[in-house]
């Protein structure tokens, strides 16, 4: 089973490397968005504004990155996967792939934010950790949303409609948690409690995805 997941993962990565135009498309999307922010914002905005802007950009980057993960699979190819793998293996491979991709994108956008909008965080290492955690949890939720939306007809808009209310609690927790990296003093242990809560939600999302995806899968 692990071997087949690895094979599926490899196929996704290979596909990404071959179709480089989509990858560069997202990269350009990130760069353009952050550049627009850079032009429209005053130099080095305050930490709260920086923080909220960053997470909103993350959200939109994720919608664009993850959205295509199920849309790019044509009907015929889905049928092919259906015949060779089990749904659980397929969704696990997708979740891992999207998490890796989103972490990469989070890293890039963080780098761009630091260079263009300054670095207001007092604890950069911790903030990078929070960003990686946040990027992976957002991508997990949107992977399942994209799987659901792929079943409907007008899917691109549907992902945003379905995903935003579900992602809101996680996003609020993330924004709160990232204040820890901006020098706000928390209660003893509160940071780990928040991080644990987000990780717990991630586990919940993965479990639900594994349980529910087989029902979406059969056609």
């Amino acid at each position, binding site marked *: 089973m692990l071997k087949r997941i690895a094979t599926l993962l490899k196929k996704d990565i290979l596909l990404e490397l071959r179709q480089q135009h989509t990858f560069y498309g997202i990269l350009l999307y990130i760069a353009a968005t952050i550049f627009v922010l850079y032009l429209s914002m005053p130099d080095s905005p305050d930490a709260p504004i920086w923080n909220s802007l960053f997470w909103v950009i993350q959200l939109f980057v994720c919608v664009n990155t993850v959205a295509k993960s199920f849309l790019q699979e044509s009907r015929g190819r889905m049928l092919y996967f259906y015949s060779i793998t089990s749904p659980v293996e397929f969704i696990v491979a997708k979740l891992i792939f999207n998490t890796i991709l989103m972490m990469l994108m989070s890293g890039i956008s963080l780098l761009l934010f630091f260079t263009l909008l300054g670095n207001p965080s007092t604890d950069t290492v911790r903030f990078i950790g929070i960003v990686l955690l946040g990027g992976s949890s957002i991508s997990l939720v949107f992977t399942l949303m994209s799987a659901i939306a792929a079943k*409907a007809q007008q899917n691109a808009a*549907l992902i945003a409609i379905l995903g*935003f*209310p*579900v992602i*809101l*609690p996680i996003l609020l927790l993330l924004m709160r948690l990232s204040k820890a990296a901006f020098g706000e003093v928390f209660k003893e242990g509160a940071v780990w409690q928040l991080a644990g*809560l987000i990780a717990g939600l991630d586990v*919940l999302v993965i479990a639900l995805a594994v349980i529910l995806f087989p*029902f979406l899968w059969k056609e």
Partner: protein
Amino acid sequence: MGGFLLEVPRLPILNETIRNLYFHVCMWMAMMIMFIVSFIYSIKYLGNTSHRNDIYAKSYAVMGTVFGVLGYATGAVWANYTWVTDQSQSLGSILKEPKLIGAAIAILIYGAYFVLRGSFTDMDKRARVSAVYNIFAFAMLFPSIWIIPRMVGSLHPGAPGSDSGNPALSYNDIDSSLRQVFYPAIIGWTLLGVWIATLKIRIELMRDRELLK
């Protein structure tokens, strides 16, 4: 069952705004009960794909959303008289309160659920995909309503820092005369919701009678 609706506001109550306890708190409870029922029927649908379960899940979700909107409205009225103390504080600043965010998320999620249902033409596919979304959304909603507000400061009772535990349920923050009406009111609102939902279900079942055979 409609008698509950008429009976409740007429009973003698101590304070003027506490009257809202019978409406606001009970509506939230009724909403949660409706959503839980809808959630259970969604699971049942995935277990055995009967069209009946899908109709049940949908109707209870509709009723839950109605109660959610009503609860939001009554809460807004209540907050206007109790929380807005000085003139400079607007309702907008109160809306960022954690429980209100949770409530808004709940309404948005079920709005998205209905949009999702609307976007399908194939009946079986619609039922299956929306059942999946319903289960997923409910599982994500649960922590956002019940856990997160308890962890951060809130104007609602039940937040850390205040000495009350479960708002309006614990023994010492609710007067016994209030309780006389409060518990029947929860049951009453819930039964009212169940009644309307079953009416809707029966209409739909009649409409789709040929399909179900």
